[in-house]
């Protein structure tokens, strides 16, 4: 399966490597670097690269490439999923995936690498189990260590979850306050054409949980309108049969935070994109080397809700060397290196009658460059709390198997996923 793993940063340094069979020399990564130079940006590096004797499968995350080297036929998705899982684990341990966080904890990362794969086969990839085997560095631990003088990151007992029927759950969990929180986050992916009509739109949702319940709780989560869920990817803890038949989630949860379900909501008919955009962008003007830009956001939030974190990003063609604009709300910036215009509008308070914020002004064009004939897309991000765009709503959460009454909470958020307006 996976023979070796290399961590490579954007400047092309291999800063960590681990081999699960024979040592494969670093030079194998030259094939990878070859592809990197061929592509304009690191995210465009193809995920599967064939070399004469090996196959390199990589993912790009947090400004780093995680490269797995395989020798024979493997299911590539298996490797890709695994690499993403690895990044997730690192994030879980050190709060962020970054070159710095890995370098700061290189020994733990190396121990983790040794624990997640054996002979290239995944061994332990559940965060809960790993944390029992290798303790993550955290505030409390360093505190406890300093006070007790204990100083070991590795547990000496077999994690009980490793082989139980519910491998995802730690045993002997005990909390003073029993709590279960559910975040239902929906993302709107849509392309809106220049006339304001949606070319395509879909809604992806996920239910992320933070469960702190003692013992072995058996939970049932039901929805008001479960038919809205078109396709679901379930956490292994969810009983598939009951979901199939009754459309509810019945599960014994892992301890702590995890993604219970990811789903695609059906959006037959037209989805209400909660904002409209008027735009004129032209690179040609009668006088001199300047173009013109005017953007107006017309918010259409659902009643009683507000658009928050509104950011508009416009990747400009190379010929635009600067921008001199006036924003009626928020701030704008133009990054001359990446030629991107970013307008951070922020929160649109509908009560105060903020109306329709505008960004207007001239674009400075490079002298001598031909007038670009492409039409930039405008990428929009926003969030609206307390509302799901699909309309999905939790009906109730029931707890079986334990006596206590937990505190329950559900939060709804809708965000823009890949939302772009064509001009």
């Amino acid at each position, binding site marked *: 399966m996976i023979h070796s793993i290399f961590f490579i940063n954007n400047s092309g340094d291999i800063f960590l490597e681990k081999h699960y069979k024979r040592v494969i020399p670093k030079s194998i990564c030259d094939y990878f670097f070859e592809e990197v130079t061929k*592509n304009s940006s690191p995210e*465009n590096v193809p995920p599967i690269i*064939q070399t004469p004797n090996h196959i390199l499968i990589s993912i790009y995350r947090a400004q780093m490439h995680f490269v797995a080297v395989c*020798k024979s036929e493997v299911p590539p*998705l298996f490797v890709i999923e695994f690499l993403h899982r690895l990044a997730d684990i690192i994030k879980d341990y050190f709060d962020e995936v970054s070159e710095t966080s890995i370098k700061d904890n290189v020994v733990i990362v190396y121990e983790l690498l040794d624990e997640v794969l054996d002979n290239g086969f995944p061994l332990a990839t559940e965060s809960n189990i790993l944390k029992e085997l290798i303790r993550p560095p955290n505030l409390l631990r360093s505190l406890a260590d300093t006070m007790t003088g204990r100083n070991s990151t590795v547990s000496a007992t077999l994690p009980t979850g490793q082989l139980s029927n519910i491998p995802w759950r730690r045993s002997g969990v005990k909390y003073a306050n029993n709590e279960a929180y559910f975040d239902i986050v929906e993302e709107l992916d849509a392309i809106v054409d220049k006339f304001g009509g949606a070319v395509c739109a879909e809604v992806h949702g996920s239910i992320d949980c933070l469960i702190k319940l003692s013992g072995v709780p058996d939970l049932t989560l039901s929805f008001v309108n479960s038919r809205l869920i078109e396709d679901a990817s379930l956490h292994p803890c969810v009983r598939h049969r009951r979901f199939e038949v009754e459309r509810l989630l019945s599960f014994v949860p892992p301890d702590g935070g995890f993604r219970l379900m990811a789903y*695609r909501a059906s959006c037959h008919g037209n989805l209400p994109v909660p904002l409209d955009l008027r735009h004129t962008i032209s690179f040609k003007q009668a006088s001199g080397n300047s173009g013109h830009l005017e953007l107006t956001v017309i918010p259409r939030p659902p009643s009683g809700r507000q658009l928050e974190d509104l950011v508009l990003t416009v990747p400009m063609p190379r010929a635009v060397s600067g921008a001199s604009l006036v924003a009626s709300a928020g701030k704008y910036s133009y990054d001359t290196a990446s030629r991107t215009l970013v307008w951070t509008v922020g929160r649109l308070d509908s009560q105060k009658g903020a109306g329709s914020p505008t960004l207007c002004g001239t674009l400075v064009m490079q002298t001598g460059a031909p007038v670009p004939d492409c039409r930039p897309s405008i990428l929009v991000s926003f969030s609206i709390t307390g509302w799901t765009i699909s309309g999905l709503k939790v009906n109730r959460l029931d707890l079986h198997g334990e006596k206590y009454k937990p505190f329950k909470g559900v939060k709804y958020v809708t965000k823009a996923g890949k939302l*772009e307006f064509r001009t």
Partner: protein
Amino acid sequence: ASVSESLGNIRPWLQKVTTQAKTTDSKYFTTTRKGEIFELKAELNSERKDKRKEAVKKVIASMTVGKDVSTLFPDVVNCMQADNLELKKLVYLYLMNYAKTQPDKAIMAVNTFVRDCEDPNPLIRALAVRTIGCIRVDEITAYLCDPLRKCLKDEDPYVRKTAAVCVAKLHDIDPLLVEEQGFLDALKELLADSNPMVVANAVAAITEISDSAQTDTAADMLCWSGQLINKLLTALNECTEWGQVFILDAVANYTPTENNEAQNMIERVSPRLAHANAAVVLSAVKVIMKLLEMLDPNSDFVLSTIKKLSAPLVTLLSSEPEIQYVALRNINLIVQKRPDILKQELKVFFVKYNDPIYVKLEKLDILIRLTSAANIANVLAELKEYATEVDVDFVRKAVRAIGRCAIKVESAAERCVSTLLDLIQTKVNYVVQEAIVVIKDIFRKYPNKYESVIGTLCENLDTLDEPEARASMIWIIGEYAERIDNADELLESFLEGFADEQTAVQLQLLTSVVKLFLKRPTDTQELVQQALSLATQEADNPDLRDRGYIYWRLLSTDPAAAKQVVLAEKPLISEETDLLEPNLLDELICHIGSLASVYHKPPAAFVDGRGGGQVAKATKGLPSRLAAEAGGAAAAAAGAGGGDFGAGTGAPGRPAVSVIPTQESLIGDLLDIDMSGGATAAAAMAAASASTNQQPVDLLGEGLDSLLGGPAPSATSPVPPSGASAAAGGSGADSLADIFGGLGGGVGGGLGGGGGFDPPMETWLPAQKGKGLQIEGRFLRRGPQLSMELRLRNNAMQQLNGFAVQFNKNSFGLAPAQPLAMNPLAPQQSVTTLLPLNTKGPVQKMDPLLTLQVAVKNNIDIFYFACLIPMYALFTEEGDMDKRVFLSTWKDIPPENETQFNLGSYAHDADTASTMLRSFNVFTIAKRSVESTDMLYQCVKLTNGILVLAELKIVPQTNAYTLSLKSRHVEIYPGVHEAYLAVLKG
């Protein structure tokens, strides 16, 4: 959150403590200081435990970032005996890395390992058995067997599952040892383990072992049965996501025997479609897609299953881009196999601005596949958007896609053409060039319909700088020469820079000028002469020269014939220009989710010959519908052969798969369409002049021979073409005749005899052993049919009847193609019968390789005997290949696989030898003479698809024959060697 809140008031203090306590590892990344190793050494031998641990940590960190700390080996190993688990783990990490370089010292660690394997703590037992397998040192491996055997039967499933993987590790190091020690059987037993995780790991280990197996016992470890499948599917529900992938991929190799079974399997696998792990989903899709083939396509069950597949596939496209990419490559296959699944989901393939380029290109491909008259408007609007994007590659592909839409959906062709014209008006250079390339295809598909746009195209003539666009434009001019008034001027202007053009453009220019001449002979004579002389005299490229000569000869002998050939009606181009060939598609469907599915190539194309499996693998095929349903025994046989994992049969029956040319190469073919027409005509002429020439004439043969010559092509420079071009100035026609004559003589060896030689009969079963039945026999090959000739003699006193014959599993899967047809045999009677054979039987590698064990039954008893199959009986008629293929295949096979044999001396010269060998399906691909030594390059294809390439060297004076063989499968060399000896000796 609540915890940190309650601690809120002590936070400042807390932070102070942590900053003090927090020591990051990043310091290890600084470069090695002088004396650092020395310091570490001192610390490793420190009295204090915590100091030692800290030191080992430092060593590991240095090792991690690639510093050489191997000199510390003995000091680190000394820390191993510690009872601290973390320290132990760290030392193990170090050992795994450096044991290979210091094998003698690694031995020191063995005792601790063996002891740890018996530790009361299962974690330590597992850790020890895990680590010991990673230490790839022979001396240690020997000590590993006993502890491993114990761990495989450990009471703790955690240890058992670790041990299962360890068997795979050990197999990688020493496969023979694993077999001798019986670990393979122990592993098989774990398939029935009560713990699903152990089962999953056993499956994973077995899969890996059989992938790299050197012997058949290892390759065929999984003996499929309904029972085993049942067990695996039960384990499937309870094991980890990774285990599910292993199990699903293994289950995909099983072909059920009944419809109910298939249906039941689908039902049990389909819940996996809702798994959060994309790999699990795709593996489940694979299993289902394969099993669906067996069921009635119109049944409700199949229709509802197909419906279920679409949503999970669409969901994959909302994951990370890398996952999307793999999903898209697979969806590309699925859409070709079952277009219905995703036909409603067009919009999910619309390209988003932020998609990485590799995702964009794949989406575009699928978009075109899903295009139909119903949705063409949507697709076209999108494609037009894409054509104004920033990324050049993507824009190009989008423009091409518009052309493909036009070819696919006739009703929309007009709209597509006008969209393309709009794009040409943008004058963006690469857009214009791509547009012209696709418009040429549209002309091919809809002749005489859109010629009105030619004027617009001609306006952009000067901006074309890419060979493909230039060639396309020239093709258009030639094709519509009668409608373009200044066609001659245009072509003439191209001709001025003839020498600087790329070959594709030159070839096209030559053809177009000839077309123009045939259409408007009066005023273009000069032009055509100029073009022909440029092609035949100035050009170095043999393709170009040859094409020039062909046209010259055609035009000078029979202009009417030339017209027929050059202006012949062209076959229409197909709607889907880049569909995969159906056999390949079926094979790839069986490999959904694998690398093969990403490359769209059969696994053999890139995995074989990687130091991987030595045992020939059966290609996977989709099962056909079951006999009861399909109502035909043939279908059943194909189904059984295709899917059965254990009995590797597929290969012989399956024709070699080839990919239909991609867009790029297809364009080349389109341009060359006239060429092939010319070639056929030329071949006909050659056949006429060179009397009875049976073999297809290879017009380019001589030129390629020189290419094959390798390092010294100039030394062996072929005489005829150069002579011809010298003479061409005078009268091209005569010298051309010489070329054809020469070729005819050179290649016209013809088929020898037609039958091949028949070996004498051997006695296989003497009468005393056969209770009176005596059997003699031999193997014969008549054309494609391999048969066994048997002479049965009844030496007993009573009648013998009820004859039947059966073969044991053998290396090449030989099996009787039909039952033995034998009348009762009276005493003293002898009968000769011919038993046709096929190679669809079960395969098991025999030792010696060619042994065939036969059982013959009659009313008295069952008799067993063994005979040797002569290797030449297994040479198929498919061994012929193109020279270029030969050359590249030869290069692909690692040089260490080449073996040389001295065959002794024979009176035959090279041509006779070649003819003799040809009658045994040894194909001579090329012949070359170096300093009067003849070299024959030959190729043999065995019934199971193994290719053997041979170089036969014949030194003329001594007539000494030397044979060099090259194949991926060296174990067949002795057989091939014998076969050559047998043939050459007559």
